[in-house]
């Protein structure tokens, strides 16, 4: 963080953290105002720019308030002492400093950015990263009014035109002549998992004992591929001038993007400037970096002129990185008294990070598709000390005597996998919290009581659990046919926020989530309404994942390319959501990802409570529920 003070006492905050729709610019402004004793209108948080902002890595991992906020407090403390008696700004629900302009329709999104002499680009590419362009007739599109260039480079086709409409017409004209060729055929999840190796032990405590065991419970859970499905397609602008590249992007990591663009075009990073401009909701590594490459690639054809590239909705659904499918097998050895003696959690998953900035070659889709393609870096899981990927939240938060956590890397050819909100935590928490309830059911225990006993060492966990249960009336619930309540808890990444969720569902023709009661501990709350918005928004998104979402693909590419094929939760399906913030003076923790895993699990547990059947494969569609009931002979 860097501070710039003006003569009138106001301050500009230079941060590398970017607005994803989560309100971080407001939260940081509040922190600065708090430390410096300033009023809201005296603090401005500037959009990140590689030319002027510090490199704060990626805005991700729910770390902006935690790490960025701490850095900001230190910077403020170093600049000047906190004025005695200045009113506290944290703990207040400052309104977001960007919403009024966005509601007014002001030109503040990257999609609205217009530069002098702006040209409009479109990039066409094969369905698979390593696909080919077999045939294309460029001539017919070249003659259309407004079309300046139609070019081909390996598997990439590009159009540059003087208007967006002209670019779209060129694409329409090209479409009938295009023939794409397959890359390496993709395999389905069952085959991909079967091909994964024996795995690596991620964590271990104690060992399996053979004596005194009565039985072993085992269950397998699955989560499908999930799309970011942002309401806006990805967009970027780029301009080359005298060997310097300028890019405007909604990337989560502008310095990483800068580095990889430099790699892609064989220039110095110092010759690249990336400015962040707000996009639509960003939930992880989406298409923002890829479209930045596309814009730079086209702009290189017309030096001195800026080119804007907007992805189509189909590309946004099918060419962006996706949250990968995960399979989790849980096993528990139980003693005669029903206690768990050994807990085994095996997770099969592709990597959860294929972000720019980490490899010797660029992690930019187009750079793998030109006539001189660069090798595509693999998708990896970051070390567990940094939060992990596939193994995130696989280590139990419960006090269990012994466990073994194994990660099996899925590397078979499949869609491109990278970071999506909460990474592996959603599948792992869904599986583990469902499994806890299965143990509870098998041993005649009670979901809240079991969790209480196993969280006695973690007072903050107990507190959120008790609060959610109390607010949801857990102890007083009465069994009603077709209606159920389910409970789930997790501490995100074991280092982040604590969150407990009670879901109330009704299961008639289909599963409907009526209410989510959520208790969360994020440490010292900077902006209460901001935290609630993130927790509630995350829970609603997780409800959508749990009930409706699964990317479809075949050997040749992703097939769910529009909103019909990939439906998300509608207003009529959104539950009532109550969020309870536990007060705390402990260090602030991020709220953006804490509610997703527990929400999915609570819904699955509530379904069991409602109908007496356990569905272990997401999404919890009517077909799967019926199949589970049939299997149970209900």
């Amino acid at each position, binding site marked *: 963080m860097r501070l710039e003070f003006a003569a009138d006492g106001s301050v500009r905050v230079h941060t590398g953290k970017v607005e994803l729709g989560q309100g971080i610019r407001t939260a940081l402004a509040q922190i600065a105002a708090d430390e410096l004793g300033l009023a809201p209108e005296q603090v401005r948080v500037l959009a990140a720019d590689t030319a002027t902002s510090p490199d704060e890595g990626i805005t991700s991992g729910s770390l902006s308030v935690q790490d960025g906020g701490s850095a900001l407090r230190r910077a403020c403390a170093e600049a000047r002492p906190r004025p005695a008696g200045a009113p506290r700004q944290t703990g207040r629900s400052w309104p977001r400093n960007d919403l009024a302009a966005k509601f007014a*329709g002001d030109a503040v999104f990257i*999609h609205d950015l217009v530069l002098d002499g702006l040209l409009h680009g479109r990039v066409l590419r094969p369905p698979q990263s390593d696909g080919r362009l077999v045939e294309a007739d460029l001539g017919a599109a070249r003659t259309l009014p407004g079309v300046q260039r139609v070019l081909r480079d390996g598997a990439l086709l590009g159009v540059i035109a003087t208007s967006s*409409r002209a670019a779209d017409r060129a694409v329409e004209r090209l479409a009938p002549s295009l023939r794409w060729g397959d890359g390496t055929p993709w395999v389905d999840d069952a085959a991909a998992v079967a091909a994964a190796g024996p795995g690596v032990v991620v964590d271990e405590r104690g060992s399996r004992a053979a004596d005194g065991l009565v039985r072993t419970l085992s269950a397998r859970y699955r989560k499908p591929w999930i799309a970011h499905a942002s*309401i*806006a397609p990805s967009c970027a602008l780029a301009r080359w001038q005298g060997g310097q590249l300028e890019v405007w992007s909604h990337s989560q990591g502008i310095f990483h993007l800068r580095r990889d663009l430099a790699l892609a075009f064989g220039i110095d990073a110092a010759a690249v400037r990336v400015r962040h401009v707000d996009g639509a*909701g960003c939930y992880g590594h989406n298409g923002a970096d890829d479209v930045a490459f596309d814009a730079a690639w086209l702009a290189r054809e017309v030096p001195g002129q800026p080119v804007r590239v907007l992805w189509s909705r189909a590309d946004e659904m099918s060419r962006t990185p996706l949250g990968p499918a995960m399979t989790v097998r849980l096993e528990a050895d139980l003693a005669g008294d029903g206690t768990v003696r050994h807990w085994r959690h095996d997770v099969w998953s592709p990597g959860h990070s294929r972000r720019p900035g980490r490899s010797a070659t660029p992690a930019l889709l187009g750079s793998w598709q030109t006539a001189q393609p660069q090798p595509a870096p693999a998708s990896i899981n970051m070390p567990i000390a940094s939060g992990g990927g596939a193994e995130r939240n696989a280590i139990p938060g419960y006090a269990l005597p012994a466990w073994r956590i194994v990660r099996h890397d899925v590397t078979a050819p499949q869609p491109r996998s990278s970071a999506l909100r909460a990474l592996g935590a959603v599948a792992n928490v869904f599986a583990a919290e469902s499994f806890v309830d299965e143990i509870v059911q098998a041993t005649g225990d009670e979901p809240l009581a079991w969790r209480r006993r196993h969280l006695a060492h973690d007072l903050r966990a107990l507190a959120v659990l008790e609060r959610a249960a109390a607010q949801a009336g857990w102890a007083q619930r009465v069994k009603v046919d077709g209606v159920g309540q389910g409970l789930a808890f997790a501490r995100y990444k074991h280092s982040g926020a604590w969150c407990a969720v009670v879901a109330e569902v009704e299961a008639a023709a289909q599963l409907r989530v009526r209410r989510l009661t959520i208790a969360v501990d994020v440490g010292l709350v900077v902006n209460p309404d901001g935290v609630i918005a993130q927790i509630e928004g*995350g829970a*609603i998104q997780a409800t959508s994942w749990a009930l409706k979402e699964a990317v479809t693909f075949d050997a040749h590419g992703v097939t769910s390319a529009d909103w019909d094929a990939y439906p998300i939760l*509608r207003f*009529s399906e959104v539950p009532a959501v109550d969020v309870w913030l536990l007060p705390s003076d402990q260090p602030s923790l991020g709220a953006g990802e804490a509610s997703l895993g527990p929400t999915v699990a609570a819904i699955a547990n509530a379904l069991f409570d409602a109908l007496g059947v356990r569905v272990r494969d997401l999404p919890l569609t009517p077909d799967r529920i019926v199949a589970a009931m049939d299997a149970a002979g209900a």
Partner: protein
Amino acid sequence: MPRIELTVNGRACLFEADDDKTPLLDLLREDLRLTGTRYGCGDGACGACAVLVDGVAQSSCNLPLWAAAGKDVTTVEGLDPRLHEAFVAEQAAQCAYCSSGMLVAAAGLLRRTPRPTAGDVVAALDEHLCRCGAHPRIVRAVLRAAGVAAA
């Protein structure tokens, strides 16, 4: 060249289209520089591009100009400021990309149902997608704008 006349936010517009199949959305954003109406899918499936056409909320991304000829179009920029204020007061967005469409749909609803129930609001917005999960806030904002207490 076909000449298309329509009214946008109360002002008469004359557009000479070399292609009268151009979607209304393109005219609004590029020719009139009204950036509030947003591109989401091009298919009429997400609601981000909604405008009022003769008072009724409609997608503009798949509305060809010829079909908008002679119509009275209102974009988010032309809505009653009290509707915007209600959204601000309820902080009814996360990324706010879907908000223009929500505001327009709300305006269309309030014209025909000045005192809606929460159920009316949900029905009016059900074709509008929000990915960030701001739905409860959006419903409260519309009820607030209508002067109706949220249940």
